[in-house]
């Protein structure tokens, strides 16, 4: 009796784990199926080469490039903000800050990532854009610059926390060796500790990039909804995610090509983040083994 109970419980728990596999398969199936039907009607060549994305207009074009450029542009700006700040914070907290300071400041910084993204969208649109317009008079009300900057602030803790963990894991003996030869903390940090923690730092950066690419509300609110194949940060653009939101808010007929465009856009996004996540996972595994 007891054995049967134990057996059933184990199987029950295992079925919960299987749900996670089901989710992945579900995502691939749903995106794949709808995207497949989309590509029955739209040529894949057009999808990747056309520089216009106008599925909701009468003159329909299905080129993903404008959405892709919008996504990459906002993500690039976000990383340009978050990387130097996040990495500096990570190094400062791990190499300079007193232990007590580090312990109080880390959860506070992580609060930055806990703020709902719709709130950041509000900041970007209502606070940051008007502020930046004071310096850049021709900045549109919707633009990738302020969306990117605010997104960058949001992802700071992804880089700072994870890279601080990686830096902290470097054996103290290496720092001692360096200090013992007359190196300053800065020299020790950049010549010894950062290189030794590089895999962990790279993981943190990749995760931050992946997060920026998939971020939705900030860009949907502040970057605009005009697909535009451009690298100009002052004009409205549209990201993949913002497009999906735009279509979801309208009343597009289920089963129409327009409806399927969000899955074609979605699978493009999924492939990007999937590759980034898998890559970061493989680095993390390698690096764990090295320290174990």
């Amino acid at each position, binding site marked *: 009796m007891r054995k049967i109970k134990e057996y059933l419980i184990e199987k029950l728990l295992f079925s919960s784990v299987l749900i996670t596999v089901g989710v992945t398969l579900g995502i691939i199936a749903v995106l794949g199926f709808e995207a497949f039907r989309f590509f029955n009607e739209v040529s894949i060549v057009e999808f990747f080469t056309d520089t216009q994305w106008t599925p909701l207009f009468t003159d329909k074009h299905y080129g993903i490039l404008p959405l892709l450029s919008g996504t990459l542009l906002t993500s690039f700006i976000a990383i340009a903000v978050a990387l130097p700040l996040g990495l500096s*914070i990570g190094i400062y907290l791990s190499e300079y800050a007193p232990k007590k300071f580090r312990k109080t400041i880390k959860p506070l910084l992580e609060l930055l990532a806990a703020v709902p993204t719709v709130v950041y969208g509000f900041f970007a649109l209502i606070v940051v854009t008007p502020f930046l317009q004071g310096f850049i008079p021709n900045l549109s009300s919707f633009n990738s610059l302020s969306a990117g900057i605010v997104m960058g602030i949001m992802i700071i803790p992804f880089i700072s926390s994870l890279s601080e963990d990686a830096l902290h894991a470097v054996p103290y003996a290496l720092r001692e060796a360096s200090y013992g030869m007359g190196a300053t903390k800065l020299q020790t940090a950049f010549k010894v500790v950062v290189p030794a923690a590089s895999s962990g730092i790279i993981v943190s950066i990749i995760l931050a990039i992946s997060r920026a690419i998939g971020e939705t509300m900030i860009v949907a609110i502040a970057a605009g909804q005009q697909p535009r194949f451009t690298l100009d940060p002052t004009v409205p653009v549209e990201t993949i*995610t913002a497009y999906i939101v735009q279509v979801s808010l309208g009343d597009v007929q289920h089963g129409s090509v327009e409806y399927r465009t969000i899955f074609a856009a979605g699978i493009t996004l999924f492939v990007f983040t999937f590759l980034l996540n898998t890559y970061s996972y493989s680095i993390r595994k390698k690096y764990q083994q090295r320290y174990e």
Partner: protein
Amino acid sequence: MNSIQKNRFKDRLFMYWGMFATLIGLVLLVVFIGDILIDGLGRIDWSFITNLPSRKPDKSGIYTALIGSIWILILTAFIVIPVGVAAGLYLEEYSKKNWLSGVLEINISNLAGVPSIIYGLLGLEVFVRIMNLGASVLAGSLTLSLLILPIIIVATREAIKAVPKSIQDASYALGASKWHTIWYQILPAAGGGILTGVILALSRAVGETAPLIVVGALAYVPFAPENPMDEFSVLPIQIFNWISRPQHGFIENAAAAIIILLLITFIMNGIAVYFRNKWQKKWK
């Protein structure tokens, strides 16, 4: 300046830059929140909480959205906690180290990185269309459950890992079965850690907008949901909707609703941190 003095100077300079970088994010957060308080605090009164949405900004309230958010929160918790904790338990206590456990682990790590809007697309097809739940509270909760499932699994595993092995050994030595040991020893011991993870994950769910928009949650619902099959709105969607309106009155409303949303988020985070500290002390 000789090279050693130069190096010392650079060292100092970086230290100050590091301090600045550490504080700038927090300072900006404070500035943002201050700005929102200025914009929205005056708008908050009892009628703002209890009014239904309206075409007139000063008559609008967050009642339906707030009730929707609470529905989503409770329903999501009911769905995701048993599944997430069970999966975490299995992976930590039962799973053997082989190719399968490797695949499961990569899979969960990957799911944690899938953009939330993709979960929305999954929920739209599976829950709304195939299972025919429509744009209901249930469909929204199921979608958010899948979204935060990996977070809860990882938190459960971490919490169980932190439980000293001696507790298990003691239980086994007394002749307890595996499940008995897990249920009466490991789960209570890991409870604080699991609870922390669950609260943080739920706080993320409360702040989510995009997947619920894709699932079909509405920006305007004239009445609060009364059962899981009702249509619904949530606070973040209400905020998003108000931000996208041109009249200034709605911006005030958005700011006021953001104050409420942030309050909920920060309280949940605070509770989580409180439990984490209390729980961590237990093992020190």
